[in-house]
């Protein structure tokens, strides 16, 4: 990382780790800092043999792991039809004024003398002529052109909190309550989910996503794709492929003795599982699928695996993962932002195309969010400081594709007293709409004060 994090951000990282080891206690935090949702949930590891995934399961302490394995197998057997929501977190507070740059705003160059995009860089944003897509977000612009991206140019909440941790917590729990301990998607799962299917809420980052924290039903995190390879020293090429076929054939050829026959059946199953698991291997996405390649970032591979899991019928409802990089760009913002934004946008487009090719695009919506936007005026380090209103997206074939809330502009009406963008839409209203229009359940009881938010139309 070329830029420095603010203290708050580093602490945020520490707390995330602590949340990942929920139950082992948190490091000392300052008074008033909220505990991440899900802190203290029990965590156990299990291997979902039917799906070949190594999982951490949270909040199912009363159930045996075999019950969970059976629950997953059972849920997989019935073809899932429930809608899937994928939450993609842009960590650190992405600079919305770079993602959708207000090059047509008269105050833009004054506020961003060194970071401003050129007047003809990137593609124009069709819904507001003042804005242009960052060139690194061209893939998102392409999907937007197809009507598959709903843009929230300045989403937030009143009395914005500029602590990474607190603001993020608000988004995770779906309210501006520091003491809430369940995630907004977790409460949805508590209402509609099953007590034996931890895959219904799946974090792809290897640790519990607080937004998925439940109080009743189990949720899980992929610990790492279960590497189900059958490597043999000094065997490769065609003889290796034939060897693996022979492994199953030897198993299937047994008869007579019950123990030997049963052992053979396991070899047959192992061979079958090996073939089924190849798509979840989680390494690089398969070549030709259109996912960008990245040596360092797991994001494209995670999305590619996710598409394969959905295609395999795994019983997922809410999925959470974190996009590449951190966006806490206090200094030297331009390079990092462009690199991470490009990888994120290209991966999201590839995921959308993958779902379309698999005939799954009508079942999945992706919600892209960040804890806040950044200050309108750049700082002295070619960076930006914490702001308020930020950018959000809802991506998918079923997304309505029409902007929610307008871009408030960089004049005195658009900025608050701290020089931060005023929010023109509320994340809680967005959640209400996602719950009611996409997940098909009443938001009241899930989002505090749900009745007070007017629902934007998100789903076509």
């Amino acid at each position, binding site marked *: 990382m070329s830029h420095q994090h603010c203290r708050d951000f580093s602490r945020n990282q520490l707390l995330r780790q602590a949340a990942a080891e929920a139950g082992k206690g948190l490091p000392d935090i300052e008074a008033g800092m909220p505990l991440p949702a899900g802190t203290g949930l029990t965590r156990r590891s299990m*291997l979902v*043999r039917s799906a070949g995934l190594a999982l951490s399961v949270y909040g199912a302490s009363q159930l045996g792991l075999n019950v969970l394995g059976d629950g997953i197998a059972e849920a997989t057997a019935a073809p899932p039809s429930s809608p899937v929501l994928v939450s993609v977190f842009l960590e650190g507070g992405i600079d919305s004024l770079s993602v959708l740059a207000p090059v047509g705003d008269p105050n833009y160059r004054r506020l961003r003398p060194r970071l401003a995009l050129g007047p003809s860089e990137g593609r124009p944003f069709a819904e507001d002529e003042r804005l242009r897509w960052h060139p690194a977000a061209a893939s998102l612009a392409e999907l937007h052109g197809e009507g598959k991206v709903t843009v929230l140019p300045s989403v937030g909440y009143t009395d914005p909190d500029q602590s990474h941790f607190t603001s993020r917590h608000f988004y995770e729990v779906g309210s501006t309550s520091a003491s809430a301990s369940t995630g907004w998607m977790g409460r949805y799962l508590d209402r509609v989910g099953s007590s034996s299917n931890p895959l219904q809420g799946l974090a792809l980052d290897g640790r519990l996503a607080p937004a998925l924290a439940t109080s009743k039903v189990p949720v899980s995190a992929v610990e790492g794709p279960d590497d*189900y390879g*059958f*490597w*043999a*020293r*000094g*065997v*490769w*090429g*065609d*003889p*290796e492929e*034939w*060897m693996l076929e*022979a*492994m199953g*054939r*030897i*198993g299937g*050829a*047994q*008869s*007579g*003795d*019950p*123990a*030997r*026959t*049963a*052992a*053979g059946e*396991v*070899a047959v*199953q*192992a061979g079958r*599982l090996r073939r089924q698991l190849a798509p979840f291997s989680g390494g690089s996405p398969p070549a030709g699928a259109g996912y960008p390649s990245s040596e360092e970032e797991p994001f494209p591979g995670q999305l590619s695996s996710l598409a394969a899991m959905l295609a395999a019928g795994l019983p997922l409802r809410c999925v959470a993962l974190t996009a590449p990089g951190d966006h806490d760009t206090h200094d030297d913002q331009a390079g990092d932002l462009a690199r991470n934004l490009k990888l994120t946008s290209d991966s999201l487009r590839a995921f959308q195309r993958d779902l379309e090719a698999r005939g799954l695009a009508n079942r999945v919506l992706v919600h892209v969010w960040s804890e806040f936007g950044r200050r309108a005026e750049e700082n002295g380090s070619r960076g930006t400081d914490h702001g308020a209103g930020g950018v959000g997206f809802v991506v998918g074939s079923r997304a309505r594709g029409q902007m929610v809330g307008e871009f408030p502009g960089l004049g005195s009406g658009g900025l608050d007293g701290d020089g931060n963008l005023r929010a023109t839409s509320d994340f809680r209203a967005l959640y209400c709409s996602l719950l009611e229009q996409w997940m098909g359940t009443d938001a009241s009881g899930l989002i505090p004060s749900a009745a007070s938010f007017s629902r934007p139309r998100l789903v076509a």
Partner: protein
Amino acid sequence: MLKFGRPTADHRLSQATPSEAMSAVPVYSGRFGRQEAERLLWRAGFGPRPGEADKLAKRGLRGAVLSLTRPPAARLSGPAPRTEDGPLRAHSEWSHDHLWWLDRMVRSNQPLVERMALVWHDWFATVKDAAPARLMLGQNALFRRQALGSFEDLLRGVTRDPAMLLFLSGGDSTKWEPNENYARELMELFTLGAGRGYTERDVREHARALTGWDYDWREGPGPVNFRYNPEIHDTGAKTIFGRRGPHDWQDSVSMCLKHKSHPSFFVSKLWSAFAAGTPPTGTRGALQSLYVRSGYEVRPVVEAILMHPRIYDGDRVVKPPVVYIAGLLRALERPIDTGAWGWISDLSGQVLFRPPNVAGWDEDRWLDTATFRARWLAANYAIGEKRALDTDGEYDTTEDAPGAVARALAFWGRPTLSVETRRQLLAYAERCQDGIEHSWQERPYRILRQNALRMLIATSPDCMTS
């Protein structure tokens, strides 16, 4: 090992009828050749070293069994165990206790003694999370010392064993607060079986009788100075199995052994450590009678089981993971030279000193797709860099398919394989031969084939079972 859970039709064991008790245990009378000796070495140990099955076959059934049950003085042959980081530190490193015992399984000239220690570890399953390594190793020494001796001595040893006192709360049980943990398992898992002739009242009264064990806690070593402390023993009258008296722990153990349900529990559970299924009815009665007549001696019962026809003409059993792994190493005469056996055994489903719970391992679930792959890894690690053929090396370019299979079988000491498995191995060997399209492939394809055949043999259903 057979589990006694809640009583079901299968698990409800009847007492021997007088006529059964009178009859002798059947003895195998068929051919005792290499194949039978090989099976005996797997059931009563950790598989043959090269040439061992042939040697054992020459002793005949009785000679072979007695050579195992009455072994010469213990000796470990071959290089001492080590990991990549040097010699083992079984008392301090997490998986070194496992490696330490695995090494004994590989190198000992008393395979049945080590196998019996494993049987007792499973029978009196103690989990190392509860006790320091030195106490777990102390318990292991008890199991080895009492491997084939008196079950009564063993049970007394286990009842006062520090690791067990920690694991099942015996060390924290006092006359003021008797703890039922050990009392319950003493009957349910160790001597009688669940629901087989005792009541909850018996559990409570046993718990009182078993009070008196004490220890100190010292910073550093932790629990030390295990001793009997009469001050914390409940000297009051207790009623156990309907008998009233000031029973103490010795009485507790004796009454369990003399309980009418004990002999049938003992022989069925011991049988399941060596043979598939349950003992035939006549056999069970005869074994019970033998056990009681001998005064609760283990050796005669084990000898009778190992000479029983079912061992040689009965169904196969899945090798427990450590037996499988120790067997691979014995076949290759490879010492413990890597710490990898720790995590591979974990993946395989059996970490020594860490059974899943007090009931021991579930032998009905050794094999699934995950543990199968772990056994594949084990075979691949056992062959290792040293023994895998280098694809750039020299090789006989005239070797045909049967020759390739024969060579791969010889690599593992010619284990017995089913006709079906042999046919598939040959088919694979031929497929590789047919795959040779260019002259440059003649040599490397044969090397790849040989390496692959060795893996296919080691992971075949035949070699997963015995």
